[in-house]
Every structure is written in structure tokens, then in C-alpha cells.
């Protein structure tokens, strides 16, 4: 009953296969991450190790996992029937000496990811639940996949992965054709396909077994150990995990190759596998390493801005890069100063460090183009939608009973309770309710002053730019962006909050401008839109970004316009919707009405002057996502 695609049948992706083989051969490599765009055989590759695992089972962590199954919980059946409180092991314990496979790990809850990574690294975890308090030892290999377009892991989580490889779609036409053919053959008859690749699979298994036996005797020459340290220093890898992972992977590579000594080539490939995701000078991770609280987004934008000219404007260095690229293993030795077989007393100077760095640069070039992004924020859900995360004693939400937790709470008392025909008697004190969690979507509504005051054109350019650049990133964060303008006597919703860039482009083509400034009515309307009806959904983060100079001149109920505005602002301030005021007042004298409005609304305030659309988007993201 083996329905998996065998590893030797996977076309190309040699680095990734090496990484998996290293992990299978070595007991010291506990975590492997495979990243890549959708459809690049991440999952196929990760699952293919099942046939190579030699009696080790592959356990799948599904997206629907709850903590009781991950960590373990009270054994309901035994406890009810005997009154003896016993523990059912969770997946982490069941996976002892086995393999855990986590597909799309970046979509899982933070705590699940942490538990998996911590346990994999330390070989044990502490269970503190439902009256159990114990430390549980378990050793497993974690193989995870993720598509970075769907959101990233934190740098801390990335660092926990011993090895990481990125898969890219193959661009060679011949190989692509081969991929299609093999896939179709496999689907037609998995059994035949498996048989066809059995000799290769078997050979690989033999190689693995030999490598496992050899690995304890593999040694790393001192010069190479020094090289690893200087490499990590040069790349500004924080902590020691990187050094260790390179050394362990290099040793495993040597063992797989049937050698007792690690050579330069091993270190080179090992660095690619172990350091690619830990690098600091990779623009991608550098910005991720910034404290997430402040200025991450702005920094990111700036980095991105300078990154591409940098790469393109150094034509002098590119031929050198290509030489150092060495995709062809045969050409590696000739071009590098120290060749592997020159003996172990060879001193690897700073030059060889840079050889490796150049190699990493070349191999990871494609990954650096990735964009920034934190994970999506999550909020507690107050209705019964969302992922069941945990449970608690019932509070306000008595309808969403966590049945499993309730039964477990009742289980130990069953021997002493009176039963009325049921096997389990549940009392009120046993009741537990579910704590659910949802990925939070932000709804951002731009409210723009389109009256005839100065600078309306520039304002509109900035706003359009901001909306479009926010929408480009919106699918990672599931945000909705809308636009409302006010002018003349009222407001108009030009772009209902949407996630669709196509729609936005169509709706934003023309924006009418000119007329009076009915700011009060505009704010009231915008507030109404987000607090009532369709967009009022609980648990959502909602923001209104107001671009105005604050010079309101249209009354709503016949009072003086500024007084009405102040009154409205104070009433709706702090009501759950976040306000950002972008002050469009420019030149002299300044009246500062927008600042007053910002104070009344308890809003974040800044000036539009010289902000381009991109910068505006960055500011908005920054204020909105770092809130809370």
C-alpha cells in the first residue's frame, strides 16, 4: 500500500534530495524545511522519504490539529471505565523515533509550530495540561514544507531548522517533459511505477544504511572546521546553530559519499543547506531580523528599493559570479583555489570563505527577491467560527462547548458519580468552552478629501499609489482595501472594501474632484460603513485613513462645522476602529485643523508632504499592523 512517488523518480532538485538524505542518514539533523512556489513538488518530495525511512513511519500533522492530540491528553476510555487517570500520548510522543511531516507549516498556528520545532530540537517537551505535569522525551525528524508567498515564518523559527532548501520550477524543457511523463505514468499505475523505480530506491536505501554506519567515524579536518566558523562569522549568522548544522550536514554528505573525512565540497554544499535561510546579509533575512515592532515595513521598502539597482549595476562582478556558480559538479574543482584532494592540512584562508559565499549568493539569488511580510495576525474569535485552539471554563460563550475537554474533565469522577443510563455523567463544573482563533483580516478604508482645496491632484496620486501597493500585498494578509471620497455636499464610496486589485484598478480610473469640504459627513459615513452591516464583522481589524487638511466647511445639522466635527470625532474615538490622519495641509500659514481632529479622534497623525504612494502605503501598514 504505497501510494507515494518514489524519491529517485523525482526529476532534478538535487540539493533538496541531498538535504533529505542527510537528515535520514544523520541522527543529529532533526529538522528540514522545503520551501518553494506552488507546484514545485515540495510535498511530493517531502512525502517520498517514506519509502526510504527503513521502518520509520511518517506521521502527518494536519492543519486541523488540536493541542490534546499534539501533546497528549487524558485517556477518556480507560479513565471513565476504571477511574484510573491515564495519558494518551500525543502525536509528538507517537512520533518517537519516527518522522513527522508538516505540510504548509507557515499556515499552522504559532504555538503548534513552536511545539514542533522545540521538541524536535531538544528531544523532549513538558506537558502541563488537564492535571498532567510531566516531561516527555521523544526524538523525531521533522520535515516541513511551505510556500513563502503565503506568509513567512519568523527568523527565530527559521533558525530552528537545521537544513532548508528552496525548490524552483525547472526551466529546462527536456526535464519538464520528463516530469509530465513520469507523473502521468505514476497516476496510471502507481504499483508499476514503484516497481520500475525499485532498483534505484533500493540502491539509495543501501547507500543510506552504509552512510548511517559510517557517520560516527567521519571526521572534520581542523582547517575545515575553522572555515565553517569564519564562514558563519562572515555571514553574520547569529548563534551557534548554523555552525553546528553545517558541520553535521557536511559530515553526513561525506558519509553518503562513502568517505571518512569531510572535504571542501561537502562544506560548500552543507553551507548552502544550512546557512541559506539563516543569512543576515541576504536582504531578505536582514530586514526580517529587525525588531518587528518598529519600522520593519519602512526598512523593508528601503531595502527593496536599493537592492535591485545594486545587483544590476555591478556588471563587473557578474562574470565572476557566474564562474563561481558551478552548477556542474565536474567543474567545481578546477575553478576553486583549494581542491578537495589537496590534503587536510591545507589552510583555508579568507579567500575560500568568499568562494563559498559567492557560491551561496549565486545559488540563492532567486530567493532574495522575496518580499517581506510577517505572518498574518490572529484574533480570538467570539462566535463559533475559527480554529479550535484551546478551551477554558465557560464565560460568555456558553453555546460553544468544547465537548472533548468537558468529557475529559468529567472522566476522573465517573466512578463516584451517579449514572442515569449514560456512560458518562457530566456536571456543570465539568463544562469547558472552546477558545477559537481566526486569522485576522484588516479592512482599511481610505477617506479622501476631494474638495477643491490645494494639492488635490497630488493627494489623489499618492492615494491611488498607496491603495494599489497595499492591494499587491493584500492576499498574503487577506486585507480588504476601500476608498471613499467626500466633496461638495456628501461622500461617495468609490471602491467598496475589496481584495481584488483588478476591481480596484477599474474603479480608480477616474476620481472626481472639486467643491466644498463636508468632512464631518464623510467621517460619519465612513464610520457607518465599517461599523454596520457587511463590514462590521467582529474580530476584524478596521482602520480608516483620512487624508484631509481638516478645513471642514459644510455643516451637517446647521451648527458650526468645526464644532460638529469635534463632537462627532469625540463620540466615535476609541470605538474599535482605528483612525490615521494624513495631513495634507501645506505651505504657510498652517492652521493645524487636521492635528486637532487627530487629537479628538485619538488618531495617528502624519503629514502627506512628499510622501509617494509607496511610502504612504508603508506608513499605513506600519501604523496599522504594529498596533495592539
Amino acid at each position, binding site marked *: 500500500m504505497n501510494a507515494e512517488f518514489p524519491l529517485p523518480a523525482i526529476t532534478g532538485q538535487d540539493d533538496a534530495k541531498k538535504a533529505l538524505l542527510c537528515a535520514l542518514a544523520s541522527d543529529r539533523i532533526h529538522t528540514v524545511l522545503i520551501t518553494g512556489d506552488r507546484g514545485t513538488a515540495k*510535498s511530493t518530495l517531502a*512525502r517520498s522519504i517514506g519509502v526510504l525511512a527503513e521502518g520509520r513511519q511518517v506521521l502527518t500533522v494536519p492543519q486541523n490539529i488540536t493541542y490534546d*492530540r499534539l501533546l497528549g491528553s487524558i485517556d477518556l476510555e480507560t479513565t471513565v471505565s476504571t477511574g484510573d487517570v491515564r495519558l494518551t500520548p500525543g502525536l509528538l510522543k507517537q512520533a518517537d523515533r519516527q518522522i513527522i511531516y508538516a*505540510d504548509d507549516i507557515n499556515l499552522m498556528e504559532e504555538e503548534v509550530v513552536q511545539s514542533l520545532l522545540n521538541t524536535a530540537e531538544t528531544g523532549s517537551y513538558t506537558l502541563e495540561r488537564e492535571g498532567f505535569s510531566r516531561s516527555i522525551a521523544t526524538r523525531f525528524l521533522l520535515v516541513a514544507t511551505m510556500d513563502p508567498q503565503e506568509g513567512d515564518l519568523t527568523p527565530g523559527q527559521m533558525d530552528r531548522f537545521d537544513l532548508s532548501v528552496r525548490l524552483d520550477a525547472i526551466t529546462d524543457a527536456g526535464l519538464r517533459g520528463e516530469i509530465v511523463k513520469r507523473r*502521468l505514468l505514476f497516476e496510471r499505475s502507481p504499483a508499476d511505477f514503484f516497481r520500475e523505480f525499485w532498483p534505484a530506491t533500493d540502491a539509495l536505501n543501501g547507500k543510506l544504511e552504509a552512510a548511517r554506519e559510517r557517520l560516527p567515524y567521519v571526521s572534520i579536518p581542523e582547517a575545515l572546521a575553522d572555515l565553517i566558523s569564519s564562514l558563519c562569522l562572515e555571514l553574520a549568522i547569529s548563534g551557534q546553530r548554523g555552525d553546528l548544522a553545517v558541520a553535521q550536514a557536511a559530515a553526513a554528505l561525506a558519509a553518503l559519499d562513502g568517505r571518512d573525512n569531510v572535504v571542501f565540497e561537502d562544506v560548500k554544499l552543507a553551507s548552502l543547506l544550512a546557512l541559506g535561510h539563516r543569512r543576515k546579509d541576504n536582504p531578505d533575512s536582514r530586514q526580517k531580523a529587525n525588531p518587528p515592532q518598529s519600522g520593519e515595513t519602512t526598512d523593508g521598502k528601503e531595502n527593496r528599493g536599493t537592492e535591485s539597482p545594486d545587483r544590476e549595476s555591478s556588471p563587473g562582478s557578474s562574470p565572476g559570479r557566474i564562474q563561481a556558480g558551478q552548477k556542474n559538479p565536474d567543474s567545481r574543482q578546477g575553478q576553486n583555489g583549494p581542491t578537495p584532494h589537496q590534503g587536510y592540512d591545507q589552510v583555508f584562508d579568507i579567500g575560500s570563505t568568499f568562494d563559498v559565499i559567492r557560491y551561496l549568493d549565486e545559488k540563492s539569488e532567486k530567493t532574495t527577491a522575496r518580499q517581506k511580510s510577517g505572518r498574518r495576525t490572529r484574533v480570538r474569535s467570539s462566535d463559533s467560527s475559527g480554529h479550535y485552539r484551546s478551551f477554558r471554563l465557560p464565560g460568555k460563550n456558553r453555546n460553544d462547548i468544547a465537548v472533548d475537554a468537558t468529557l475529559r474533565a468529567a472522566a476522573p469522577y465517573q466512578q463516584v458519580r451517579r449514572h442515569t443510563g449514560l456512560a458518562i455523567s457530566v456536571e456543570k463544573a465539568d463544562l469547558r468552552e472552546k477558545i477559537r482563533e481566526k486569522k485576522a483580516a484588516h479592512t482599511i478604508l481610505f477617506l479622501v478629501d476631494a474638495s477643491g482645496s490645494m494639492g488635490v491632484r497630488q493627494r489623489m496620486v499618492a492615494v491611488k499609489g498607496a491603495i494599489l501597493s497595499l492591494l499587491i500585498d493584500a492576499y498574503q494578509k487577506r486585507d480588504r482595501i476601500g476608498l471613499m471620497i467626500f466633496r461638495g455636499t456628501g461622500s461617495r464610496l468609490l471602491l467598496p472594501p475589496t481584495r481584488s486589485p483588478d476591481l480596484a484598478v477599474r474603479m480608480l480610473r477616474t476620481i472626481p474632484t472639486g467643491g466644498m469640504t463636508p468632512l464631518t459627513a464623510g467621517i460619519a459615513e465612513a464610520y457607518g460603513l465599517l461599523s454596520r452591516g457587511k463590514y462590521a464583522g467582529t474580530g476584524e481589524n478596521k482602520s480608516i485613513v483620512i487624508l484631509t487638511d481638516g478645513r471642514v466647511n459644510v455643516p451637517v445639522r446647521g451648527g458650526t462645522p468645526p464644532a460638529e466635527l469635534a463632537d462627532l470625532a469625540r463620540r466615535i474615538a476609541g470605538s474599535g476602529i482605528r483612525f490615521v490622519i494624513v495631513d495634507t495641509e501645506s505651505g504657510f500659514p498652517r492652521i493645524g485643523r487636521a492635528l486637532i481632529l487627530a487629537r479628538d479622534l485619538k488618531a495617528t497623525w502624519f503629514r502627506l508632504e512628499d510622501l509617494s504612494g509607496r511610502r504612504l502605503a508603508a506608513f499605513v501598514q506600519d501604523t496599522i499592523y504594529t498596533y495592539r
Partner: protein
Amino acid sequence: MSGEHPVYPFSAIVGQDNMKDALLANLVNPSIGGVLIRGEKGTAKSTAVRAVADLLPERDVVKGCMFRCGASDIRNLCSSCREKIAAGETPETERARMRVIELPLCATEDRVAGTLDIGHAITKGQKKFEPGVLAMANGNILYVDEVNLLDDHIVDLLLDAAAMGVNFVEREGISYSHPARFMLVGTMNPEEGDLRPQLLDRFGLVVDVEGEKDTARRSEVVKRRLGFEKDPVAFCGRYEPEQQKIRDRIAVAGKILGDIEPDDRLIDTAVRVSLSLGVDGHRADITLVKTSLAFAALDGQKDVGKEHVLKAACLSLPHRMRRRPFDESHADLRSVQALIGECYSCP
């Protein structure tokens, strides 16, 4: 059709040929990966999806199995059926019709993935798995209306199961896995927001439908609909010969598909097209080849012709083109058609 609630017959749907083709191709080869139908309300999207169930031949399923395991599909059995067979039993089978299982937008996680059977736990004190929507969908069509509005974490569950063909449940004290192979059919109105790229890529084919523009055909739509509502049974009876023709066509196509292998020209074309478009990953190539084969088979042919590839390309590629925000991708599709024409021009 002899059920109590007759569904509007597939063959009575006016026009919308792309949508019908896409559905039929999936019926012939379910591994194409389902269909996403994009279009405004009232363009017969749901009608077409529901009508599909009546086209499928009944299949043998294990009697009493809650996952309706296919009796002949030994590789994808649930654990209890597997145990039975391993113990030497020959499970009793029954004939079952393929069904359209609907996943409502408000479905909660436990209902989708399956959960602890509460009644059983309380009355017997034992844990038992209560199957969810993914279990019912096994071997059937899973239909999600307004799929772009589906909650994000439910999408994650769907993707998880769709990717593996197995639903692993590790929740609420339950540890269970069961086969979950289904044909995913989604409908959406693109104005309500985009679909997550990851989910979009899981749909083998995407069709954009528009309301009928021709007056005569529009009134034909209305006439047939009224005819159906007046007397569904008689209406279905009138279309029964047409329905049978389609059923036969699917059955024949299925047989042909088992015999044909993709030739080098087809694979070569698919690869060249994908490379020229810079699509993500390899799913585009594979789907294009499979869909072309299915269309040839539906035409009763063993040789894939240019027209089959062209039709397949229109359905399998547009949603996989690397998305440059804000440009409309029709121009690219024209160059694809030119390229396919080129590949198939010399004999």
C-alpha cells in the same frame, strides 16, 4: 432520472460550452483536479454543477462504509475496509450514484474535518470518529459556492486534504485518517474578491462564464426553465435520450483514455507553452496534457489534435500565469494559441 427530486438535466443547459467541457473533462479524468467557475450570478453555474451528478454511472461501493470506499479501488480504502479485506473477507457491495456534496460557507472546522462523536462518547464512554464533509465528499463532487468567501482556515483544511487525498484528523481526542478524494468544484463572482493563489492553483481548470447575450438563446433559457418547473419529471424524461448520449460518451471516453499515451508532440507543446508563459511550478504542464487527452477521448479519438490542445489551454492556463498585478492577461493567451498552432502545424 428517477429520483424524487429531479435535477435540471445537463443536456438542457443552453450554451456555456466551456463550462460543460470543463466539467465533462473532469468526469472523464478526475485527476485533472476540478473546476473553478467564475462569473456573475444567474449564469447557470450551480445548475451545471448539480446536473453533473446525473451523468455519472453508478459505481460499486462497499456496503455500509461511511466513506463509500470504491470496491475496485483497492489503494484508497478506509481503515475498516482495509482491515476487512486483509482479514480475507470480501466486503459486500452496493451500487451508488455519485453525489454533489455542498460545503456551505458557514461550515465550522469540526464539521469539515470530522470530530468526536458526542453521543457515542456520552452514552458509551468511548471515543468514536464522527465523519465530516470531507468524509462525505470521498468519491463524490465537493461543491463550494462562493469559494472566494470561504473562511481562511477552512481553505487550509481543504487544501490539506486535496493535496494528499487523505484527511488526517488529529483533533478533540480523535486520531483518524480516511480517504478524501473528491472532485473540487467551486463557483465565485470575481467582483467579490480574488481567490487565494494557492487554492486557485489547486483547481485544474478555470472557466469564465458570461450571461447569454443572444436574444433567441436567452428566451430559450427561460422557456426551458419554465418547462422544467412546470413538470420536472416530464421535462427530464424528454431530455433523457440526450442525457444517455452524454453518459455513453463519458463511458467511451473513459475507456479510450485508458488506452492512450501522450505523444512527444503533446508533451513538448505543453512544456513550451508553460515556459513561454513563465507559469508557477509544474502543475500547468501536467494539467494541460491531461485535459488535452480527455478532450480527445471525449471526441472518441485516440490522437490529440490541435483543437483539443487549444481548448485545454484556454481552460488550464489563464489562472496559472504568473500574475503581474493590474494587467489583463488576454494578450498572453493569444500568443499561446499561436505557439500551439506552430507546434501542431507541421505533420
